[in-house]
Protein backbone atom coordinates (compact mmCIF):
# COMPACT_ATOMS: atom_id res chain seq x y z
CA UNK A 1 0.00 0.00 0.00
CA UNK A 2 1.39 3.43 -0.90
CA UNK A 3 1.82 6.16 1.73
CA UNK A 4 -1.38 8.02 2.56
CA UNK A 5 -1.36 11.68 1.47
CA UNK A 6 -2.68 12.68 4.86
CA UNK A 7 -2.76 10.65 8.01
CA UNK A 8 -3.68 11.31 11.63
CA UNK A 9 -2.47 9.13 14.46
CA UNK A 10 -4.26 8.99 17.75
CA UNK A 11 -5.53 12.60 17.81
CA UNK A 12 -7.00 13.85 21.08
CA UNK A 13 -8.73 17.12 21.80
CA UNK A 14 -10.36 18.41 24.95
CA UNK A 15 -12.55 21.50 25.18
CA UNK A 16 -12.63 22.48 28.84
CA UNK A 17 -13.88 19.16 30.18
CA UNK A 18 -15.36 17.79 26.95
CA UNK A 19 -13.27 15.07 25.34
CA UNK A 20 -14.14 15.97 21.75
CA UNK A 21 -11.68 13.66 19.99
CA UNK A 22 -10.77 10.33 21.57
CA UNK A 23 -7.82 9.00 19.63
CA UNK A 24 -8.75 9.47 15.99
CA UNK A 25 -6.51 7.69 13.48
CA UNK A 26 -7.42 8.18 9.86
CA UNK A 27 -5.65 7.57 6.57
CA UNK A 28 -6.64 9.34 3.38
CA UNK A 29 -5.11 8.27 0.09
CA UNK A 30 -4.30 10.37 -2.92
CA UNK A 31 -7.23 11.05 -5.21
CA UNK A 32 -9.75 9.70 -2.76
CA UNK A 33 -13.09 11.39 -2.10
CA UNK A 34 -13.73 10.67 1.54
CA UNK A 35 -17.10 11.33 3.08
CA UNK A 36 -17.04 12.15 6.79
CA UNK A 37 -20.43 11.77 8.42
CA UNK A 38 -21.78 11.93 11.93
CA UNK A 39 -24.25 13.74 14.12
CA UNK A 40 -23.66 17.24 15.47
CA UNK A 41 -21.01 17.06 18.17
CA UNK A 42 -19.56 13.81 16.88
CA UNK A 43 -16.15 15.44 16.43
CA UNK A 44 -16.15 15.95 12.65
CA UNK A 45 -15.63 19.68 12.81
CA UNK A 46 -13.05 19.35 15.58
CA UNK A 47 -11.02 16.97 13.43
CA UNK A 48 -11.29 19.32 10.46
CA UNK A 49 -10.40 22.39 12.49
CA UNK A 50 -7.23 20.64 13.61
CA UNK A 51 -6.27 19.71 10.05
CA UNK A 52 -6.94 23.25 8.82
CA UNK A 53 -4.97 24.90 11.62
CA UNK A 54 -7.80 26.67 13.46
CA UNK A 55 -7.24 24.51 16.55
CA UNK A 56 -4.35 22.40 17.76
CA UNK A 57 -4.62 18.81 18.90
CA UNK A 58 -3.78 18.12 22.53
CA UNK A 59 -2.16 14.82 21.61
CA UNK A 60 -1.38 12.80 18.51
CA UNK A 61 0.35 13.26 15.18
CA UNK A 62 -0.46 14.50 11.70
CA UNK A 63 1.53 13.14 8.75
CA UNK A 64 1.57 14.52 5.25
CA UNK A 65 2.99 12.18 2.61
CA UNK A 66 4.43 10.16 5.48
CA UNK A 67 6.22 13.16 7.04
CA UNK A 68 5.13 14.43 10.48
CA UNK A 69 3.97 18.04 10.21
CA UNK A 70 3.19 20.77 12.69
CA UNK A 71 0.12 22.79 11.73
CA UNK A 72 0.04 25.83 14.00
CA UNK A 73 -2.31 28.12 12.07
CA UNK A 74 -4.36 28.32 8.85
CA UNK A 75 -1.38 29.75 6.99
CA UNK A 76 0.68 26.63 7.79
CA UNK A 77 -2.13 24.38 6.57
CA UNK A 78 -2.47 26.30 3.32
CA UNK A 79 1.28 26.25 2.87
CA UNK A 80 1.16 22.46 3.11
CA UNK A 81 -1.59 22.30 0.49
CA UNK A 82 -4.54 21.73 2.80
CA UNK A 83 -7.39 24.04 1.89
CA UNK A 84 -10.63 24.19 3.85
CA UNK A 85 -13.99 25.46 2.69
CA UNK A 86 -16.23 26.19 5.65
CA UNK A 87 -19.96 25.93 6.03
CA UNK A 88 -20.25 29.59 6.99
CA UNK A 89 -18.40 30.52 3.83
CA UNK A 90 -14.76 31.43 3.82
CA UNK A 91 -15.36 34.66 1.94
CA UNK A 92 -15.99 38.30 2.72
CA UNK A 93 -19.37 39.23 1.19
CA UNK A 94 -18.52 42.91 0.83
CA UNK A 95 -15.43 42.32 -1.26
CA UNK A 96 -15.17 41.51 -4.95
CA UNK A 97 -14.65 38.02 -6.31
CA UNK A 98 -11.10 38.67 -7.48
CA UNK A 99 -10.15 40.15 -4.10
CA UNK A 100 -11.68 37.21 -2.27
CA UNK A 101 -9.84 34.67 -4.40
CA UNK A 102 -6.53 36.16 -3.34
CA UNK A 103 -7.19 37.09 0.32
CA UNK A 104 -3.98 36.56 2.25
CA UNK A 105 -2.10 35.46 -0.89
CA UNK A 106 -2.25 38.58 -3.04
CA UNK A 107 0.10 38.83 -6.03
CA UNK A 108 2.17 42.00 -5.63
CA UNK A 109 3.89 44.22 -8.17
CA UNK A 110 6.50 45.10 -5.59
CA UNK A 111 6.68 45.02 -1.85
CA UNK A 112 8.64 46.12 1.19
CA UNK A 113 8.58 43.78 4.18
CA UNK A 114 5.57 41.84 2.91
CA UNK A 115 3.38 44.89 2.26
CA UNK A 116 3.09 46.07 -1.32
CA UNK A 117 1.06 47.13 -4.31
CA UNK A 118 -1.53 44.65 -5.58
CA UNK A 119 -1.25 43.32 -9.10
CA UNK A 120 -4.95 43.83 -9.77
CA UNK A 121 -4.77 42.93 -13.45
CA UNK A 122 -3.29 39.54 -12.60
CA UNK A 123 -5.84 39.09 -9.81
CA UNK A 124 -8.70 39.66 -12.26
CA UNK A 125 -7.31 37.47 -15.02
CA UNK A 126 -6.34 34.62 -12.72
CA UNK A 127 -9.62 34.64 -10.84
CA UNK A 128 -11.61 34.54 -14.10
CA UNK A 129 -9.50 31.60 -15.25
CA UNK A 130 -9.71 29.80 -11.90
CA UNK A 131 -13.49 30.14 -11.85
CA UNK A 132 -13.82 28.94 -15.43
CA UNK A 133 -11.65 25.93 -14.55
CA UNK A 134 -14.26 24.63 -12.12
CA UNK A 135 -16.91 25.12 -14.77
CA UNK A 136 -18.50 28.10 -13.09
CA UNK A 137 -19.32 31.00 -15.35
CA UNK A 138 -19.56 34.40 -13.78
CA UNK A 139 -19.89 37.62 -15.64
CA UNK A 140 -17.33 39.72 -13.84
CA UNK A 141 -14.60 39.23 -11.24
CA UNK A 142 -15.52 42.69 -9.93
CA UNK A 143 -18.93 41.63 -8.64
CA UNK A 144 -19.27 41.46 -4.87
CA UNK A 145 -19.29 37.97 -3.41
CA UNK A 146 -22.38 39.01 -1.44
CA UNK A 147 -24.30 39.20 -4.72
CA UNK A 148 -23.63 35.56 -5.56
CA UNK A 149 -25.89 32.68 -4.62
CA UNK A 150 -24.73 30.22 -1.98
CA UNK A 151 -23.78 27.62 -4.56
CA UNK A 152 -21.83 30.13 -6.64
CA UNK A 153 -19.93 31.21 -3.52
CA UNK A 154 -18.91 27.64 -2.76
CA UNK A 155 -17.86 27.36 -6.40
CA UNK A 156 -15.62 30.39 -6.07
CA UNK A 157 -14.16 28.98 -2.85
CA UNK A 158 -13.38 25.71 -4.62
CA UNK A 159 -11.91 27.62 -7.57
CA UNK A 160 -9.68 29.47 -5.12
CA UNK A 161 -8.45 26.24 -3.59
CA UNK A 162 -7.80 24.76 -7.04
CA UNK A 163 -5.92 27.85 -8.16
CA UNK A 164 -3.48 27.45 -5.28
CA UNK A 165 -2.90 23.80 -6.23
CA UNK A 166 -4.15 22.30 -3.00
CA UNK A 167 -3.36 18.65 -2.46
CA UNK A 168 -6.15 18.06 0.02
CA UNK A 169 -9.43 19.90 -0.04
CA UNK A 170 -11.65 19.81 3.01
CA UNK A 171 -15.28 20.83 2.53
CA UNK A 172 -16.98 21.41 5.87
CA UNK A 173 -20.76 21.19 5.36
CA UNK A 174 -20.61 22.97 2.00
CA UNK A 175 -24.24 22.10 1.21
CA UNK A 176 -25.76 23.61 4.35
CA UNK A 177 -28.43 26.23 3.70
CA UNK A 178 -28.40 25.56 -0.04
CA UNK A 179 -31.36 24.85 -2.26
CA UNK A 180 -31.66 21.46 -3.98
CA UNK A 181 -30.45 22.88 -7.28
CA UNK A 182 -27.51 24.64 -5.67
CA UNK A 183 -26.61 21.51 -3.74
CA UNK A 184 -26.49 19.55 -6.98
CA UNK A 185 -24.08 22.16 -8.32
CA UNK A 186 -21.75 21.85 -5.32
CA UNK A 187 -21.81 18.06 -5.57
CA UNK A 188 -20.91 18.53 -9.23
CA UNK A 189 -17.90 20.63 -8.19
CA UNK A 190 -16.75 17.88 -5.83
CA UNK A 191 -17.03 15.27 -8.56
CA UNK A 192 -15.01 17.58 -10.78
CA UNK A 193 -12.26 17.71 -8.15
CA UNK A 194 -12.03 13.93 -8.13
CA UNK A 195 -11.68 13.94 -11.91
CA UNK A 196 -8.71 16.29 -11.50
CA UNK A 197 -7.05 13.99 -8.98
CA UNK A 198 -7.54 16.23 -5.93
CA UNK A 199 -8.02 14.47 -2.62
CA UNK A 200 -11.22 15.63 -0.94
CA UNK A 201 -12.68 15.24 2.51
CA UNK A 202 -16.38 16.02 2.36
CA UNK A 203 -18.12 16.62 5.65
CA UNK A 204 -21.88 16.59 5.92
CA UNK A 205 -24.62 15.27 8.10
CA UNK A 206 -26.72 14.75 5.00
CA UNK A 207 -26.06 11.14 4.00
CA UNK A 208 -27.49 11.56 0.51
CA UNK A 209 -25.02 14.32 -0.36
CA UNK A 210 -22.10 12.25 0.87
CA UNK A 211 -23.09 9.11 -0.98
CA UNK A 212 -23.64 11.13 -4.14
CA UNK A 213 -19.99 12.10 -4.50
CA UNK A 214 -17.71 10.08 -2.22
CA UNK A 215 -16.05 6.72 -2.68
CA UNK A 216 -15.25 6.04 0.96
CA UNK A 217 -17.38 6.67 4.01
CA UNK A 218 -16.07 7.33 7.50
CA UNK A 219 -18.59 7.78 10.28
CA UNK A 220 -17.84 9.39 13.62
CA UNK A 221 -19.74 9.31 16.89
CA UNK A 222 -18.76 10.70 20.28
CA UNK A 223 -15.25 11.60 19.16
CA UNK A 224 -14.39 8.25 17.64
CA UNK A 225 -14.46 6.61 14.23
CA UNK A 226 -17.21 4.01 14.26
CA UNK A 227 -17.29 2.98 10.59
CA UNK A 228 -14.81 3.09 7.71
CA UNK A 229 -15.87 1.38 4.47
CA UNK A 230 -15.81 1.96 0.72
CA UNK A 231 -19.08 3.56 -0.34
CA UNK A 232 -19.86 0.59 -2.57
CA UNK A 233 -19.79 -1.81 0.38
CA UNK A 234 -22.08 0.13 2.66
CA UNK A 235 -25.39 1.90 2.44
CA UNK A 236 -27.21 4.86 3.85
CA UNK A 237 -29.24 2.46 5.96
CA UNK A 238 -26.19 0.80 7.50
CA UNK A 239 -24.50 4.11 8.33
CA UNK A 240 -27.70 5.55 9.79
CA UNK A 241 -28.09 2.51 11.98
CA UNK A 242 -24.58 2.79 13.40
CA UNK A 243 -25.04 6.47 14.16
Amino acid at each position, binding site marked *: MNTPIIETRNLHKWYSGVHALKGVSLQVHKGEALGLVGDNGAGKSTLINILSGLHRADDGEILLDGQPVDIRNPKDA*MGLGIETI*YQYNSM*VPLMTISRNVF*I*GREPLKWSVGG*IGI*LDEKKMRQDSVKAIADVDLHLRSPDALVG*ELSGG*QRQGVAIARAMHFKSKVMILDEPTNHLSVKETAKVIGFVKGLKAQGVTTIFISHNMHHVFACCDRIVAMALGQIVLDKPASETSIEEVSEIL
Partner: protein
Amino acid sequence: MRRLFKLALQKPELASTILLLLLVILFEIRSNGVFITIDNIRGVLGLLPETALVAVGVTLLMICGEFDLSVGSVFALMPMTMAVLVVGGWPFWLAVLAGLALCAVIGFLNGYISNRFEIPSFITTLGMLFMARSMTVVVSGGFPPRIKPGQVPSWIFVGFVDGGGIIRASVLWFAGIAILISLLLARTNFGNWVRATGGFLPAAQAMGIPTGRVKIACFMICSILAGFAGMMQSLRLNSFLPSIGEGMELQAVTAAVIGGTSLAGGVGSIIGGLIGATLIRIIDNGMVMSQIDANWFKFAIGALTIFAVIGNAWLRRRGRAMKVETDR
Protein backbone atom coordinates in the same frame (compact mmCIF):
# COMPACT_ATOMS: atom_id res chain seq x y z
CA MET B 1 -24.56 51.62 -18.23
CA ARG B 2 -27.07 50.07 -15.86
CA ARG B 3 -24.19 48.28 -14.23
CA LEU B 4 -22.27 51.52 -13.69
CA PHE B 5 -25.38 53.17 -12.25
CA LYS B 6 -25.79 50.23 -9.88
CA LEU B 7 -22.18 50.51 -8.76
CA ALA B 8 -22.59 54.28 -8.23
CA LEU B 9 -25.69 53.76 -6.10
CA GLN B 10 -23.79 51.34 -3.91
CA LYS B 11 -20.92 53.76 -3.32
CA PRO B 12 -21.07 54.47 0.41
CA GLU B 13 -20.16 58.16 0.10
CA LEU B 14 -22.83 59.02 -2.47
CA ALA B 15 -25.50 60.35 -0.09
CA SER B 16 -23.11 62.64 1.74
CA THR B 17 -21.65 64.02 -1.50
CA ILE B 18 -25.11 65.00 -2.72
CA LEU B 19 -25.90 66.53 0.67
CA LEU B 20 -22.65 68.49 0.66
CA LEU B 21 -23.42 70.06 -2.72
CA LEU B 22 -26.97 70.93 -1.68
CA LEU B 23 -25.81 72.56 1.55
CA VAL B 24 -23.14 74.63 -0.18
CA ILE B 25 -25.80 75.99 -2.56
CA LEU B 26 -28.26 76.56 0.30
CA PHE B 27 -25.75 78.45 2.46
CA GLU B 28 -24.55 80.50 -0.48
CA ILE B 29 -28.11 81.67 -1.08
CA ARG B 30 -29.04 82.13 2.60
CA SER B 31 -25.88 84.11 3.37
CA ASN B 32 -26.41 86.46 0.41
CA GLY B 33 -23.20 85.34 -1.26
CA VAL B 34 -20.71 85.67 1.60
CA PHE B 35 -20.40 81.92 2.04
CA ILE B 36 -18.19 81.44 -1.00
CA THR B 37 -15.78 84.32 -0.49
CA ILE B 38 -12.02 84.23 -0.06
CA ASP B 39 -12.15 85.25 3.59
CA ASN B 40 -14.67 82.60 4.50
CA ILE B 41 -12.94 79.85 2.56
CA ARG B 42 -9.72 80.75 4.34
CA GLY B 43 -11.46 80.28 7.66
CA VAL B 44 -12.91 76.92 6.73
CA LEU B 45 -9.62 75.70 5.27
CA GLY B 46 -7.77 76.53 8.50
CA LEU B 47 -9.70 74.12 10.68
CA LEU B 48 -10.77 71.56 8.09
CA PRO B 49 -7.48 69.70 7.49
CA GLU B 50 -7.08 69.20 11.24
CA THR B 51 -10.49 67.68 11.92
CA ALA B 52 -10.50 65.81 8.61
CA LEU B 53 -7.17 64.16 9.37
CA VAL B 54 -8.60 62.76 12.59
CA ALA B 55 -11.67 61.60 10.66
CA VAL B 56 -9.46 59.84 8.09
CA GLY B 57 -7.69 57.84 10.80
CA VAL B 58 -10.93 56.93 12.52
CA THR B 59 -12.46 55.92 9.18
CA LEU B 60 -9.58 53.55 8.44
CA LEU B 61 -9.94 52.02 11.89
CA MET B 62 -13.70 51.66 11.56
CA ILE B 63 -13.32 49.89 8.20
CA CYS B 64 -11.08 47.47 10.10
CA GLY B 65 -13.97 46.95 12.50
CA GLU B 66 -12.68 48.86 15.53
CA PHE B 67 -13.26 52.15 17.36
CA ASP B 68 -11.00 54.79 18.80
CA LEU B 69 -12.49 57.20 21.34
CA SER B 70 -9.06 58.42 22.48
CA VAL B 71 -8.29 60.52 19.37
CA GLY B 72 -9.48 63.77 20.97
CA SER B 73 -7.13 63.31 23.93
CA VAL B 74 -4.22 62.24 21.72
CA PHE B 75 -4.96 65.37 19.65
CA ALA B 76 -4.05 67.41 22.74
CA LEU B 77 -1.34 65.16 24.20
CA MET B 78 0.93 65.14 21.15
CA PRO B 79 1.40 68.93 20.77
CA MET B 80 1.64 69.34 24.55
CA THR B 81 4.42 66.76 24.77
CA MET B 82 6.21 68.34 21.85
CA ALA B 83 5.94 71.85 23.27
CA VAL B 84 7.14 70.81 26.71
CA LEU B 85 10.16 69.10 25.13
CA VAL B 86 10.93 72.15 22.96
CA VAL B 87 10.73 74.42 26.00
CA GLY B 88 12.99 71.93 27.78
CA GLY B 89 15.64 72.49 25.13
CA TRP B 90 15.01 69.65 22.68
CA PRO B 91 15.47 70.39 18.97
CA PHE B 92 12.09 70.92 17.25
CA TRP B 93 12.22 67.91 14.93
CA LEU B 94 13.31 65.54 17.66
CA ALA B 95 10.43 66.79 19.80
CA VAL B 96 8.00 66.21 16.91
CA LEU B 97 9.30 62.67 16.46
CA ALA B 98 9.04 61.99 20.18
CA GLY B 99 5.45 63.25 20.18
CA LEU B 100 4.51 61.05 17.23
CA ALA B 101 6.28 58.08 18.82
CA LEU B 102 4.16 58.58 21.93
CA CYS B 103 1.04 58.52 19.73
CA ALA B 104 2.26 55.29 18.14
CA VAL B 105 2.71 53.73 21.58
CA ILE B 106 -0.82 54.77 22.60
CA GLY B 107 -2.22 53.32 19.36
CA PHE B 108 -0.28 50.12 19.94
CA LEU B 109 -1.62 49.82 23.49
CA ASN B 110 -5.19 50.45 22.30
CA GLY B 111 -4.88 47.65 19.77
CA TYR B 112 -2.81 45.26 21.84
CA ILE B 113 -5.01 45.46 24.93
CA SER B 114 -8.22 45.06 22.91
CA ASN B 115 -6.78 42.01 21.17
CA ARG B 116 -4.94 40.36 24.01
CA PHE B 117 -7.79 40.54 26.49
CA GLU B 118 -10.52 40.32 23.87
CA ILE B 119 -12.37 43.37 25.11
CA PRO B 120 -14.21 45.81 22.83
CA SER B 121 -12.00 48.65 21.63
CA PHE B 122 -14.84 50.93 22.66
CA ILE B 123 -13.87 50.21 26.28
CA THR B 124 -10.10 50.22 25.81
CA THR B 125 -10.09 53.55 24.03
CA LEU B 126 -12.67 55.04 26.40
CA GLY B 127 -10.17 54.33 29.18
CA MET B 128 -7.39 55.76 27.05
CA LEU B 129 -9.48 58.90 26.46
CA PHE B 130 -9.25 59.72 30.16
CA MET B 131 -5.68 58.54 30.62
CA ALA B 132 -4.27 60.52 27.69
CA ARG B 133 -6.21 63.66 28.69
CA SER B 134 -4.88 63.36 32.21
CA MET B 135 -1.32 62.88 30.93
CA THR B 136 -1.70 66.06 28.88
CA VAL B 137 -2.43 68.08 31.99
CA VAL B 138 0.30 66.31 33.95
CA VAL B 139 3.08 66.92 31.43
CA SER B 140 2.11 70.59 31.13
CA GLY B 141 2.28 70.89 34.91
CA GLY B 142 -0.85 72.98 34.80
CA PHE B 143 0.87 75.81 32.95
CA PRO B 144 0.71 75.78 29.16
CA PRO B 145 4.23 75.95 27.72
CA ARG B 146 5.03 79.12 25.82
CA ILE B 147 6.81 78.99 22.51
CA LYS B 148 7.76 82.35 21.07
CA PRO B 149 6.51 83.06 17.54
CA GLY B 150 9.32 82.15 15.16
CA GLN B 151 11.06 79.90 17.68
CA VAL B 152 9.95 76.78 15.80
CA PRO B 153 9.54 76.43 12.03
CA SER B 154 5.76 76.10 12.20
CA TRP B 155 5.40 77.53 8.68
CA ILE B 156 6.29 74.07 7.38
CA PHE B 157 2.97 72.84 8.75
CA VAL B 158 0.68 75.87 8.79
CA GLY B 159 2.27 78.67 6.73
CA PHE B 160 0.36 79.98 3.73
CA VAL B 161 1.71 78.41 0.56
CA ASP B 162 0.05 80.71 -1.95
CA GLY B 163 0.42 84.46 -2.38
CA GLY B 164 -3.25 85.13 -1.69
CA GLY B 165 -3.15 83.61 1.78
CA ILE B 166 -5.89 81.03 1.34
CA ILE B 167 -4.18 77.68 1.37
CA ARG B 168 -2.05 76.69 4.30
CA ALA B 169 0.61 74.00 4.26
CA SER B 170 -1.71 71.95 6.49
CA VAL B 171 -4.05 71.51 3.51
CA LEU B 172 -1.20 70.00 1.51
CA TRP B 173 -0.10 67.81 4.41
CA PHE B 174 -3.65 66.61 4.76
CA ALA B 175 -4.04 65.95 1.03
CA GLY B 176 -0.78 64.04 0.87
CA ILE B 177 -1.57 61.88 3.89
CA ALA B 178 -5.17 61.25 2.81
CA ILE B 179 -4.03 60.14 -0.64
CA LEU B 180 -1.43 57.83 0.90
CA ILE B 181 -3.99 56.24 3.22
CA SER B 182 -6.47 55.88 0.35
CA LEU B 183 -3.85 54.12 -1.74
CA LEU B 184 -2.90 51.94 1.21
CA LEU B 185 -6.52 50.89 1.53
CA ALA B 186 -7.33 50.47 -2.16
CA ARG B 187 -4.14 49.32 -3.80
CA THR B 188 -2.13 47.24 -1.34
CA ASN B 189 -2.45 43.80 0.17
CA PHE B 190 -2.60 45.47 3.57
CA GLY B 191 -5.75 47.31 2.46
CA ASN B 192 -7.22 44.01 1.35
CA TRP B 193 -6.55 42.58 4.81
CA VAL B 194 -8.10 45.60 6.52
CA ARG B 195 -11.33 45.21 4.54
CA ALA B 196 -11.38 41.44 5.08
CA THR B 197 -10.72 41.80 8.82
CA GLY B 198 -13.50 44.35 9.23
CA GLY B 199 -15.79 42.73 6.67
CA PHE B 200 -15.90 39.18 7.99
CA LEU B 201 -13.44 38.30 10.72
CA PRO B 202 -13.84 34.46 10.68
CA ALA B 203 -13.10 34.32 6.95
CA ALA B 204 -10.07 36.59 7.32
CA GLN B 205 -8.71 34.38 10.09
CA ALA B 206 -9.41 31.19 8.17
CA MET B 207 -7.49 32.59 5.20
CA GLY B 208 -4.45 33.11 7.38
CA ILE B 209 -4.53 36.91 7.65
CA PRO B 210 -2.77 38.12 10.83
CA THR B 211 -5.92 39.97 11.92
CA GLY B 212 -4.53 40.98 15.30
CA ARG B 213 -1.53 42.70 13.77
CA VAL B 214 -3.64 44.33 11.05
CA LYS B 215 -5.88 45.86 13.73
CA ILE B 216 -2.94 47.05 15.82
CA ALA B 217 -1.43 48.71 12.74
CA CYS B 218 -4.71 50.55 12.10
CA PHE B 219 -4.91 51.69 15.74
CA MET B 220 -1.36 53.05 15.47
CA ILE B 221 -2.05 54.91 12.20
CA CYS B 222 -5.21 56.38 13.73
CA SER B 223 -3.41 57.65 16.84
CA ILE B 224 -0.48 59.08 14.87
CA LEU B 225 -2.83 60.98 12.54
CA ALA B 226 -4.79 62.37 15.51
CA GLY B 227 -1.56 63.55 17.16
CA PHE B 228 -0.28 65.06 13.92
CA ALA B 229 -3.57 66.93 13.45
CA GLY B 230 -3.38 68.26 17.01
CA MET B 231 0.14 69.47 16.36
CA MET B 232 -0.98 71.37 13.26
CA GLN B 233 -3.79 73.04 15.19
CA SER B 234 -1.53 74.04 18.07
CA LEU B 235 1.10 75.43 15.72
CA ARG B 236 -1.54 77.34 13.76
CA LEU B 237 -2.87 78.97 16.92
CA ASN B 238 0.62 79.03 18.47
CA SER B 239 -0.85 78.01 21.79
CA PHE B 240 -0.57 74.68 23.52
CA LEU B 241 -3.64 74.01 25.61
CA PRO B 242 -4.54 70.81 27.44
CA SER B 243 -8.21 71.19 26.55
CA ILE B 244 -8.14 71.11 22.74
CA GLY B 245 -9.83 68.26 20.91
CA GLU B 246 -12.49 67.61 23.54
CA GLY B 247 -15.49 65.97 21.91
CA MET B 248 -13.49 65.42 18.76
CA GLU B 249 -13.68 61.62 19.05
CA LEU B 250 -17.41 61.63 18.47
CA GLN B 251 -17.18 64.23 15.73
CA ALA B 252 -14.68 61.99 13.93
CA VAL B 253 -16.96 58.97 14.24
CA THR B 254 -19.82 61.15 13.02
CA ALA B 255 -17.78 62.29 10.02
CA ALA B 256 -16.92 58.69 9.15
CA VAL B 257 -20.51 57.54 9.50
CA ILE B 258 -21.89 60.46 7.47
CA GLY B 259 -19.35 59.55 4.81
CA GLY B 260 -20.80 56.07 4.55
CA THR B 261 -18.56 54.05 6.85
CA SER B 262 -20.37 51.22 8.56
CA LEU B 263 -20.24 50.83 12.34
CA ALA B 264 -19.99 47.09 11.76
CA GLY B 265 -16.79 47.41 9.73
CA GLY B 266 -15.78 46.40 6.23
CA VAL B 267 -17.58 49.24 4.45
CA GLY B 268 -16.34 52.77 3.96
CA SER B 269 -13.87 54.99 2.19
CA ILE B 270 -11.30 57.60 3.08
CA ILE B 271 -12.89 60.11 0.73
CA GLY B 272 -16.16 59.47 2.58
CA GLY B 273 -14.47 60.42 5.86
CA LEU B 274 -13.21 63.62 4.25
CA ILE B 275 -16.66 64.47 2.88
CA GLY B 276 -18.19 63.81 6.29
CA ALA B 277 -15.68 66.08 8.01
CA THR B 278 -16.22 68.77 5.37
CA LEU B 279 -19.98 68.57 5.87
CA ILE B 280 -19.60 69.18 9.58
CA ARG B 281 -17.34 72.19 9.02
CA ILE B 282 -19.59 73.58 6.29
CA ILE B 283 -22.63 73.36 8.54
CA ASP B 284 -20.78 74.97 11.43
CA ASN B 285 -19.56 77.81 9.27
CA GLY B 286 -22.60 78.10 7.01
CA MET B 287 -24.96 78.54 9.95
CA VAL B 288 -22.93 81.45 11.25
CA MET B 289 -22.74 83.00 7.81
CA SER B 290 -26.46 82.59 7.33
CA GLN B 291 -27.07 84.18 10.75
CA ILE B 292 -28.82 81.17 12.16
CA ASP B 293 -28.60 80.78 15.94
CA ALA B 294 -25.33 78.82 16.34
CA ASN B 295 -26.78 76.85 19.24
CA TRP B 296 -28.55 74.77 16.63
CA PHE B 297 -25.18 73.47 15.37
CA LYS B 298 -25.17 70.25 17.35
CA PHE B 299 -28.80 69.69 16.54
CA ALA B 300 -28.00 69.98 12.84
CA ILE B 301 -25.05 67.57 13.08
CA GLY B 302 -27.16 65.06 14.97
CA ALA B 303 -30.01 65.22 12.51
CA LEU B 304 -27.56 65.02 9.61
CA THR B 305 -25.97 61.87 11.02
CA ILE B 306 -29.26 60.04 11.25
CA PHE B 307 -30.40 61.36 7.88
CA ALA B 308 -27.14 60.46 6.14
CA VAL B 309 -27.12 56.90 7.45
CA ILE B 310 -30.74 56.36 6.43
CA GLY B 311 -29.97 57.86 3.03
CA ASN B 312 -26.92 55.66 2.58
CA ALA B 313 -28.81 52.53 3.51
CA TRP B 314 -31.67 53.42 1.19
CA LEU B 315 -29.41 54.13 -1.78
CA ARG B 316 -27.46 50.95 -1.19
CA ARG B 317 -30.66 48.91 -1.01
CA ARG B 318 -31.88 50.49 -4.24
CA GLY B 319 -28.53 49.66 -5.81
CA ARG B 320 -28.61 46.07 -4.66
CA ALA B 321 -32.19 45.62 -5.79
CA MET B 322 -31.24 46.49 -9.37
CA LYS B 323 -31.07 43.16 -11.13
CA VAL B 324 -27.78 42.50 -12.83
CA GLU B 325 -27.17 38.87 -13.70
CA THR B 326 -24.08 37.34 -12.14
CA ASP B 327 -24.29 34.20 -14.26
CA ARG B 328 -23.10 34.23 -17.83
